[in-house]
């Protein structure tokens, strides 16, 4: 049987299996740590930095930090929350996020995080980078203006042989997601929808599916991201 360890988040005593990642362990204890790049069931990546916490006084990403006995974690503090907010603001100026015209508006996790933090406007100047919209795939559109480089699509969307449909190409500032041309021809509508859903923002859109739900009924129209976790009763 796995060993259970005791740790503390903002002074609250928590229990989890030794070695579980902090993000997941917090969740099981009814504490939401915000994240953008993590998706339950996928190997953690730690690319967005939104889940950063102070673990025994050091800044660590909660999605990649295994829990250990006696860990002291700061998460919901002014310092950490302000830092997370500034990271979210950076995402908004670093891409071209036109929420009013975006098909994913109301479902977008970046937008939902900004709502949670009540960000009225980013403190940084908008960069308006030049990005492409690629619409020549059979089943999907990739809008690079919106991509936050979380790599969820690459990590999650695979064929029956375990081969990824998506990949990164180039490096640094020029990095972007591509869909393998030959694999794209074999992509089913179901996989396209799966890709759309795994993408936290509106960078991957299955063709001919947009704007089906009226405003007011979308995922984050009435419900704050993370509030489901915060509602979980802990023993």
């Amino acid at each position, binding site marked *: 049987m796995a060993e259970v360890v005791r740790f503390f988040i903002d002074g609250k005593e928590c229990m989890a299996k030794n070695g579980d990642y902090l993000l997941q362990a917090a969740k099981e204890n009814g504490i939401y740590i915000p994240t953008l790049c993590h998706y339950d069931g996928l190997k953690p990546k730690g690319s967005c930095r939104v889940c950063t916490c102070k673990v025994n006084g050091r800044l660590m990403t909660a999605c990649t930090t295994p829990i250990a006995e006696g860990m002291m974690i700061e998460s919901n503090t002014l310092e950490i929350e302000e830092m997370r907010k500034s990271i979210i603001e950076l995402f*908004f100026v670093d891409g*071209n996020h*036109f*929420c*009013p*015209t*975006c098909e994913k*508006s*109301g479902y977008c996790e970046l*937008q939902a995080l*900004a*709502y949670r933090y*009540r960000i*009225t*406007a980013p403190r940084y*100047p*908008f960069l*308006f980078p*030049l*990005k492409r919209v690629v619409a020549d795939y059979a089943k999907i559109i990739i809008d690079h203006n919106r991509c936050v480089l979380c790599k969820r699509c690459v990590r999650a969307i695979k064929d029956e042989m375990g081969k990824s449909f998506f990949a990164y190409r180039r490096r640094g500032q020029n990095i972007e997601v591509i869909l393998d041309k030959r694999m794209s021809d074999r992509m089913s509508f179901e996989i396209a929808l799966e890709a759309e859903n795994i993408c936290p923002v509106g960078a991957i859109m299955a063709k001919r599916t947009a704007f089906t739900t009226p*405003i007011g009924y979308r995922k984050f*129209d*009435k419900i*704050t991201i993370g509030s489901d976790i915060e509602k979980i009763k802990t023993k």
Partner: protein
Amino acid sequence: MAEKKIIATTSLAGCFGCHMSILDIDERLLDLIEIVEFNKSPINDIKKFTRKCDIGLIEGGCCNSENVHVLKLFRENCRILVALGECAIMGGLPAMRNGIPLKECIEEAYLNGITVHSNTQKIVPNDPELPILLDRVYPCSDIVKIDYSIPGCPPHADLIWATLYSLITGKESDIPYEVFKYD
């Protein structure tokens, strides 16, 4: 009763949707008019500032030289400047042209667009009276200091009301999650 606060409003590169949303505060307009007086604004059609104002509401970003001029005028004449709506905050829909060269935009609008039928003489408007288009659309905060922002496209009337109420009375307002939106 305390002296009325003075409000000015303008629509730059916007669609007037944000101004429509101001009117959507419905019967609270009657409360508003008790505590404020409007100066330069399309709502009352006062064209020029006649005094310094407490609050300036800016709809739309800056897409041409006139927008920049008006925005600077508002900064000079308003103690508190509020960006109202996504276009004022980040350029909004007009800023979707930011990745496209201006020449291409103009040619698409007046010469090559599929809905261009009647411009047989291939005229691109260039009357000296017309404001010059900027190379791209600028958020208001790129041009002047903005004190507060009210997000939304358009912002929810309740959000506008809560913000105005707080700015005027100095009291905090409780803003429900549902009214704080970017679309």
